[in-house]
């Protein structure tokens, strides 16, 4: 891939002395430290942080902004962690009134939407169902591939992979091999939450721990399955927790190079146990914090090629502004997003591709429709 010539200039000079050496490192293309990243979260100089992230991004991606026409499939909301992950309002216990589990035929029926829309990717995640076997998912992937051979399949978080390994009594590498044989192209980055043991024991006690989460991704990368990585922010974590989390991702990426994209996810408290306990509702995170999570991610994760803004969580307005704060990937058309909307997000559940392209152009960037693997598609839907 040929990157355009780097434009080495920061658009904004930092105002505070503390940021000047960090900005110098960024301009020189040097890696920033843990302390540097914490300073970037703690500063009030939002524009300087944004400008550093913008410079890192322009060097990597020029003025291109990627988007993918995708469809979310959430096969079940039954989750054995429904009491454990107190930040989530999506998972329910197996006998709950609103519990649902789709048959494969129901999944295929929902996926038929891909025939009348320009879908290039299925994004498949769900709860940890105590009974659904590995074969359910392998068959689903195989069936979707047969029906929609041109659509990439990005399915199952590390947490779901580890759950399948446990209930099948096999190791995670074998689960991944099985799914790859069935046609799995890539894996989403969910379930990372925040790696800090203190935070994890507060918001997701007994959920797959940091080492195990990273271990599944390491195995996926070794099999040649690209994955994403995430950070769920805006609940009980500190700036240091965020930075330590990102550094663990950066370390694994130095080893494997298998992460495509880092996606900070803004926590939504509505209808969650944690939200009730903290007395919170509505948008928990401010626009400044949303932009900082993205921008610091861009600067710190210098070895991850793409940073994605998830407009479902932060609004389309903030996502568009983020394109000037180091972000090069705008979450695409999402058909039937359920997880964040269960937690009170009042964003639309799908954006028209024309609207995405307009937002990107209006931010002064060049829209590039991509597939799951960040290849520009030959015939973009919006010319």
């Amino acid at each position, binding site marked *: 891939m040929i990157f355009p010539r780097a434009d080495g200039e920061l*658009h904004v000079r930092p105002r505070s002395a503390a940021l000047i050496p960090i900005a110098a490192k960024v301009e020189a293309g040097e890696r920033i430290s843990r302390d540097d990243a914490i300073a970037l979260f703690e500063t009030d100089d939002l524009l300087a942080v944004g400008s550093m992230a913008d410079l890192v991004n322009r060097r990597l991606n020029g003025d291109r902004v990627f988007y993918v026409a995708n469809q979310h499939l959430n096969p079940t909301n039954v989750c054995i962690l429904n009491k454990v992950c107190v930040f989530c309002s999506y998972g329910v216990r197996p006998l709950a009134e609103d519990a649902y589990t789709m048959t494969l035929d129901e999944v295929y029926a929902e996926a038929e939407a891909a025939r009348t829309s320009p879908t290039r990717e299925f994004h498949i995640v769900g709860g940890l169902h105590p009974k659904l076997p590995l074969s359910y998912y392998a068959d689903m992937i195989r069936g979707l591939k047969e029906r929609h051979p041109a659509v990439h399949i990005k399915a199952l978080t590390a947490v779901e992979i580890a759950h399948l390994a446990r209930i099948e009594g096999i190791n995670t590498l074998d689960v991944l091999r099985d799914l790859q044989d069935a046609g799995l192209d890539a894996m989403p980055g969910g379930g990372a939450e925040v790696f800090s043991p203190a935070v994890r024991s507060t918001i997701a006690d007994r959920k797959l721990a940091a080492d195990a989460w990273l271990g599944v991704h390491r195995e996926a990368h070794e099999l040649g399955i690209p994955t994403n990585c995430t950070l769920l922010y805006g609940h009980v974590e500190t700036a240091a927790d965020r930075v330590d989390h990102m550094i663990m991702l950066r370390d694994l990426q130095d080893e494997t190079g298998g992460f495509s994209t880092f996606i900070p996810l803004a926590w939504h408290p509505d209808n969650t146990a944690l939200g009730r306990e903290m007395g919170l509702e509505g948008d928990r995170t401010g626009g400044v914090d949303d*932009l900082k999570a993205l921008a610091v991610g861009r600067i710190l994760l210098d070895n991850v090629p793409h940073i994605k803004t998830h407009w479902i969580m932060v*609004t389309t*307005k903030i996502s*568009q502004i983020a394109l000037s704060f180091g972000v090069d990937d705008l979450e695409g058309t999402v058909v039937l997003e359920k997880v964040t909307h269960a937690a009170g997000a009042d964003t639309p559940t799908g954006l028209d591709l024309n609207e995405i392209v307009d937002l990107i152009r*209006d931010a002064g960037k060049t829209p590039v429709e991509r597939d799951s693997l960040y290849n520009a598609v030959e015939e973009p839907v919006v010319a």
Partner: protein
Amino acid sequence: MTAVVSRPTAGLAPVDAAELAECASLYDRPLLELGAMARERAPNAAPGGTVSYIVDRNINYTNVCVTDCSFCAFYRRPGHEEGYVLSNEQIGAKIDEAKAIGAVQILMQGGHNPYLKLDYYTGLLDYIKTHHPIHVHGFSSSELDVIARVHKLDVATVIDELKDAGLDSVPGAGAEILVDDVRDQIAKKKIGTARWLDIHRTVHEHGLLSSATMMFGAGESRADRVEHMIRVRDLQRETGGFTAFIPWTLQSDGTGMEGTPEPTASEYLKTIAISRLVIHNVPNLQVSYVTQGPKVAQVALHFGCNDFGSLMMEENVVSATGTDFIMPRSTLVEFIEEAGFEAVPRYQDYSPVRPDLDWYCGCRVCMDRRDP
């Protein structure tokens, strides 16, 4: 870039074409660079600076209006069954509710209702100052124009009478885009650019402060917005009576302009930053969290804005379009502080609230009413 032309405006000399082009070209600069230029010129530029806000209540005394603006979802024609005029007692009760939560002013605006005579307004103001004293920020220039025309009075006389009866300051609404070609498209029956500016000049000459708004995204060009800014800046050079500039985006749902695409968030941030640069002589620049949402409003504080506007206990006009952001005071303060600023409650003249003051408002006009 499209060619920049200044538009003919009845009764006013055209703005300088070279300056217009230069200011409009600011839109071609990177967003963050514009933000950095703007924030350096904001009064809260120093790190840890202040961001002000006002606790107040909107009272829309009537929704009856004969002006038929295509961007408005609030008004009702005379005779419509949903038309209303609030009684003095209803307004008094609303003021008491507002004062109970710490409001320091009411923003009183309504439709252009030709059935309301000057004595309605003076009677209402007198009633408020006698029974429910509070700062009255009220009657935008187009309302003042309607009152003057109904009575065949000049607007200076109307302002005199209203000020005597208790009017303390004038909101900057109704400016829309101060370019007649644009106004003819969206608000043909509303006062023109020259008249809007002239009424504000008169308001200032009578010792009252006012603000200036700009509603953009109504089909105007970027150059039209800049022309609007230059008009405001030039009047400010003459009078010094504008306290703040308040740009906001058209919300078209439920209006005759439904479907008009709203300017994007990047365009909004560029526009406020350019406002700060062009209108360098008006001290305050207000975010519009009602139209942008709290997240973008918070970000806008880093693009030259230093005021978060009003808590708006009641807001009928924008919410009639379905756009509805009203937040508790603690949330608003938290938003300002999270953005890195100190939140300071203010009066309508942008001076900080004095909690120990033995009078309903500390602005100069209100203090003059205490110590004439």
